């Protein structure tokens, strides 16, 4: 009888996603009428809740996915919670904003329902990041986590959802797909009830997002070249590179992939890198590593985010206790050389180049097939070299004299912290900047004639959403429970110092 009844399979016929999208639409419609103070209150409460659980989710993410370093994930979770909130909270994402000189008024228009894909490599940090950006812009968000990280992401999303509602957000503003799968994802991305897909993941997922017909912001993979020229402070450069490659075991897609060392300083740089914590691989070790990391099926997922020592052991060699990364000298900067490809693990290619022109050629070759539009780094004091390099490499952000993992992701630079790096047209994306709240909304403009005889209206003090016939009511307690300005300022300063301290410890310097 058991075999008979097993024929009746009802599991594929469940439309929970439709109900989820409908709920998100109600939430988005309601949320779009919140004013700035109410919105900030919600975003702040959620950012605080996320920040307070940063360590717990860091540990959980590493346990669930096997990727990365708990301490570094904790830092990313912290930066992607209060750090993100701090970065963007002083900008008005709500409006109305009044520009008397140009006779323009702008009113914020949220995207609506955002479907956010989050990767297994930076799972909870991306959940935090996208959720807080969505809240700052009054959107409803549905998180679709990578299946390998679904438990920690669902738990985090539930926590944030509860905090959001507690702070006055409409029900359903944050939801999560609990059983993510490719068919479920494709169905959701193509559903007309989704207004925007924000895809962080592999190139296949990003292309699928764009194919879906729904407006999408997808970002492609990285493969960061780092050029070190003879003008660079080699000791500092080596320290930064090792710091960057070992940060969360290179799981950020902004990590350096190959060091391109100007011939004149190449040997010296190799030695400084060794001193800074790089194990320089022998040709034999290189080949074991190659066999371990790549197969016909592509990159070995089992190596992603693992410690250098663990990878070395898997390849049959041991490294010194203080070695943090594996440095692999290579001869040919051509696509068939595996070590020129993206490596989300602390394995770094190393090749001497004749000068900036050859560095550019090598960098372009590395990113021709995959990794375009992403990130590059340079260590140099020469502005001409820096500008030539930045203008020619296939990257939309070149960080100078900084660890690329952190710097290109906006940590310790002024790019704005992000877990979603826009790879632009050269990287198959509609998004060139790092994802910010601005990416998740539009503005409706009220425009008057430039003709001076037509006077500009007086819009001061008008609230666009409290129209008399408002048919979606905002919870009435919101207006009363927003904290006073002083309280906000105090909190702001606390958070600012918190973020400052964390950045210091992350970057090892001020």
């Amino acid at each position, binding site marked *: 009888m058991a075999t*008979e*009844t097993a*024929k*009746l*399979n*009802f599991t594929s*016929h*469940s*439309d*929970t996603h439709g*109900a*989820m999208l*409908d*709920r998100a*639409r*109600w939430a988005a*419609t*309601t949320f779009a009428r919140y004013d700035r103070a109410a919105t900030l209150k919600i975003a702040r409460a959620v950012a605080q809740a996320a920040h307070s659980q940063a360590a717990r989710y860091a540990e959980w993410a590493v346990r669930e996915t096997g990727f990365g370093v708990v301490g570094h994930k904790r830092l990313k979770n912290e930066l992607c919670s209060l750090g993100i909130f701090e970065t963007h909270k002083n900008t008005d994402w709500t409006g109305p904003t009044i520009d008397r000189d140009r006779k323009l008024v702008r009113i914020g228009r949220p995207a609506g329902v955002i479907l956010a894909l989050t990767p297994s490599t930076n799972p909870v940090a991306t959940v935090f990041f996208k959720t807080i950006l969505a809240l700052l812009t009054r959107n409803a968000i549905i998180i679709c986590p990578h299946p390998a990280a679904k438990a920690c992401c669902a738990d985090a999303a539930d926590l944030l959802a509860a905090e959001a509602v507690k702070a006055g957000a409409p*029900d*359903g503003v944050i*939801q999560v797909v609990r059983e993510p799968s490719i068919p479920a994802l494709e169905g959701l991305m193509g559903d007309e*009830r989704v207004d925007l897909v924000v895809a962080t993941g592999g190139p296949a997922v990003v292309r699928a997002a764009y194919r879906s017909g729904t407006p999408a912001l997808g970002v492609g993979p990285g493969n960061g070249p780092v050029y070190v020229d003879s003008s660079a402070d080699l000791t500092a450069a080596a320290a930064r590179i090792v710091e960057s490659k070992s940060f969360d075991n290179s799981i950020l897609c902004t990590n350096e992939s190959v060091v391109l060392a100007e011939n004149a300083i190449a040997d010296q740089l190799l030695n400084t890198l060794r001193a800074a914590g790089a194990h320089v691989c022998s040709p034999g070790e290189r080949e074991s590593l190659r066999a371990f990391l790549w197969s016909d099926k592509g990159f070995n997922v089992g190596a992603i985010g693992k410690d250098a020592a663990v990878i070395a052991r898997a390849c049959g060699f041991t490294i010194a206790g203080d070695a943090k990364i594996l440095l692999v000298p290579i001869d040919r900067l051509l696509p068939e050389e595996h070590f020129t490809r993206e490596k989300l693990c602390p394995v770094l290619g190393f090749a001497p180049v004749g000068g900036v022109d050859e560095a550019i050629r090598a960098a372009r070759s590395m990113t021709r097939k995959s990794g375009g539009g992403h990130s590059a780094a340079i260590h140099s004091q020469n502005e001409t070299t820096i500008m030539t390099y930045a203008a020619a490499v296939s990257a939309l952000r070149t960080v100078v004299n900084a660890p690329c993992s952190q710097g290109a992701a906006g940590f310790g630079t002024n790019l704005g912290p992000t877990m979603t790096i826009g790879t632009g047209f050269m990287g198959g994306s509609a998004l060139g900047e790092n994802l910010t709240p601005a990416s998740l909304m539009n503005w409706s403009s009220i425009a008057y004639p430039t003709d001076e005889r037509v006077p500009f209206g007086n819009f001061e003090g008008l609230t666009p959403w409290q129209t008399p*016939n*408002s*048919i*979606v*009511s905002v919870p009435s307690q919101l207006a009363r429970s927003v904290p006073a300005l002083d309280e906000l300022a105090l909190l702001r300063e606390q958070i600012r110092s918190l973020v400052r301290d964390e950045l210091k410890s992350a970057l090892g310097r001020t």
Partner: protein
Amino acid sequence: MFDYGMFKFSSKEEVIEKSIAYWNPGKTKFWRDSGIDLVIDKREGYVIHDMDGKRLIDLHINGGTFNFGHRNTELIDTLKIALDHFDIGNHWFPSVARTALAEALVKVCPGFDYAFFTPGGAEAIDVAIKSARYATQRRKIISIIKGYHGHSGLSMATGDARFSKIFLSDRPDEFIQVPFNDLAAMERALSSRDIAAVILETIPATYGFPMPHDGYNQSVKALCEQYGALYIADEVQTGLLRTGEMWGWQSYGVQPDIFVNAKGISGGIYPFAITMLTKRTGAWMEEDGAAHISTSGGAEPGCFVALKVLEILKRPEVRANVQYLTRYFGDAFRDMVQSDGDVIVGLRQKGVVMGVEFAHPEGAVHASRALYENGVWAIFSSLDKRVLQFKPGVLMSYALAEEVVDRFRVALPRMRELIAQAPSVRSAA
């Protein structure tokens, strides 16, 4: 040409003519004469299409039958899969599907012990009344004037005389009626101490959803206890999350001795009804379990559909949707009462169970027609034509809800016009 494979019609007119000739002359002519020339053809979600292609948003949903929309794909898939293995089954024997559904129902009906299945609501009410009579060994049943419980022998006897006298089937000696919301009248009727049960729609639907006064249902239950009668809740229109809770009686904090649900539990695709009984009210099944037989009651494919209905209702998203719909329509009609108070004077509402009150005594009849002309199908209350039954399904989306309100507002001038042309115009003021 309308070709349906097994039959063809040249036009909608042909369907209507033949419907008068062969099916039901009175019903067919009534709608034709009311200006509602509807023959429903395609249907999907909360939208139905007339044979002529006219699109209508369905707010009638046949009292909750289409609570989950027309041809809900999840329910259809469920039924199709069930039919690969089951037929209606043999009512004499225990069955896997009936047992599983009964257990699932008992779990979502706190205070109840058994689920009894029938193919329709009227028979389910008959089972409720029989069970009450057995348990109390009394015959008399109290119901509400303008209450409605169906058209079978006992259920019909509880209802409006319109449906019983025509068939010489009224039984005033055993079936007593009292006004709704009148506790004194209820107590007078109960005080004879020979009443088996009071039967109440938790909110009387066909009467236009007059809202029970605060504490009314609970007070009736208390009076029942005082005078040894049982309380039967007719939850056909108020169950299945339509009042915001799984069952309407939960919304009103009253614990019935028996309750009945139908329509929505069928998913609109497989006739089904349930009578929920306690150990006490289901005691007759110990003495003679075959005392009430229903060959197609608890038909097994219907059990699968009903289980799926329960699964859908347990989703937090669905509960949230009901809350949003409740607030949205509540706000929309409050605004309309403000802006168009000459036509619309109020909204009766508990969850998505709603009655729109018109100033004119037959305002809802005209509103029904004006809405029909503007793409919305909502029916007036046949026992109170001042009130339009306004019943969005629990899965209705924001976009469709917004469209309903848009269409309602567009139809308002036409309502005003039809009301002005009506024979007996009464001013709202």
